[in-house]
């Protein structure tokens, strides 16, 4: 396993120039997630338009993998339906947790196939999933009408 297989150019590009970063209004739900081993955090907002993801905005502190994975996420879900993005999410999770055993489906994952290399590094899987977990949580909240978990929880500290 070479380092370059994990840190593909596409990942480093997203890291250096993250898509859709920053927190925006309006939004339907917000989720705050943290990686307790390294202190990385993300606050992520989802705006839905019917069953469609209208916007995903976020504020994150984290490594290249977690930042890039969140950036790629927005490309893959914004404009799609919630159901479509759930399929993408499942595919992404299966890939990064597979220890290299799942052949990623480029049709579903597009640029996100670049994260296949992460699956060889179990301790980085959490990094790749941080933003995705926040997205999953926020969508669930938006649908349940319970708008945040969230930044609140962080402040409660």
């Amino acid at each position: 396993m070479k380092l370059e297989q994990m840190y593909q150019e596409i990942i480093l590009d997203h890291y250096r120039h993250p898509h859709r970063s920053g927190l925006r209004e309006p939004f339907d739900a917000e989720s705050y997630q943290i990686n307790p081993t390294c202190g990385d955090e993300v606050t992520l907002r989802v705006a839905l338009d019917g069953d469609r993801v209208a916007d995903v905005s976020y504020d994150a502190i984290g490594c290249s993998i977690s930042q890039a994975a969140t950036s790629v996420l927005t490309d893959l879900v914004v404009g799609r339906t919630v159901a479509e993005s759930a399929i993408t999410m499942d595919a992404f999770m299966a890939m990064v947790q597979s220890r290299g055993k799942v052949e990623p489906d480029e049709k579903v994952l597009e640029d996100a196939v670049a994260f296949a290399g992460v699956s060889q590094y179990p301790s980085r899987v959490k990094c790749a999933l941080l933003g995705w977990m926040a997205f999953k949580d926020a969508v669930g909240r938006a649908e349940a009408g319970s708008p945040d978990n969230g930044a609140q929880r962080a402040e409660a500290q």
Partner: protein
Amino acid sequence: MTGQLTTGQLSVSELEKIRADFPILSRTVRDSRPLVYLDSGATSQRPRQVLDAERAFLEQHNAAVHRGAHQLAEEATDAYESARARIAAFVGVQPDEVVFTKNATEGINLVAYGLSNSAVAGGAAERFALAPGDEIVITEMEHHANLVPWQELCRRTGAVLRWYQVTDDGRLDLDSLELSERTKVVAFTHQSNVMGTVPPVAELVRRARAVGALTVLDACQSVPHTPVDFAALDVDFAAFSGHKMLGPSGVGVLYGRRELLEALPPFLTGGSMIEIVKMEGSTYAPPPQRFEAGVPMTSQAVGLGAAVDYLSAIGMERVAAHEYALTERALTGLSEIDGVRIIGPSDCVDRGGAVSFMIGDVHAHDAGQVLDDLGIAVRASHHCAWPLHRRFGIAASVRASFAVYNTPAEIDALLAGVHEVRRFFRVPA
């Protein structure tokens, strides 16, 4: 021991092969007597496979688990979590319901402190908070490990300790106590470490559920000796120790039903069990991490995983059948010796392989000393079940306890030793 053997009694040659895996069993004691180790109820011996697994881990993969991102740290974490998964499967539960502790004693204390900490933890923990006058129920046959922590929990909370009594033949007297709406915990052993008695778990669980009490099973003496499935037993918590089941010392397991572990506040706090830490306050990780503060007993968990593999390769049904035969031989033999009094059931019904007895009025220490001189290691004490001994009007007893590596010949050596005790101390017929 290699190969998957799942039915019937152990053959002589299998037993020999098993014994060859345990280096200590070939040593001699006291003027070159072969060791007859009948103290596995206190602690078992370890097969080479367990020693090797721990050593291989330490020579190849050792690192702090769940903390590092380098290769060793990933390998160590994998080995640790793989052990957790195999141990969980061994007792019929999910990996995230298995908390590694240093021994069963810590596991039971974890539950007891979790309950008292609930009073100040707030949130989901509130359901566990105890009020003065609430009741904790145990039994008179408990090991101190499943007794003193509850006394101390009562001291911290004002709850009251009550207990089921023991009948003259060493069974639990289910009529000796009625649970009430105030009963919050019912804690009991899965097998008495003194008498071998297996209490009626299903009935105890049924009664506890009926009043909404939590059940805590002390599985120290069952898990090493017989197939155990905590999910099927439907208990809420259960604890056991590695060192009694061919595994390392310094590692034990607390099982907790997932939704209970999720609501229980932490006990030991520090590194690795946190979610967010600020000087002003902290939040905690989900279970099982929430209950594993600090660098854990990594190599010991790996060793316990190997112990579980070893036992599984033999097959727990066969382990139980083998020990049953040993116990029956011991009980029959002892009951034929004049002046021997067995503490607890003298038949093999609902009973495991711990046999405690008195020889005339010879003090247990004196009897144990004569046996020791013959190379026979038994335990002479109250076996950390002092109230049970008081119940039978004695201070201490002699206990022989068995494991998969013991042989019928060793039982015969014990019986011969008992005759020698009688001769030495001139016990009248």
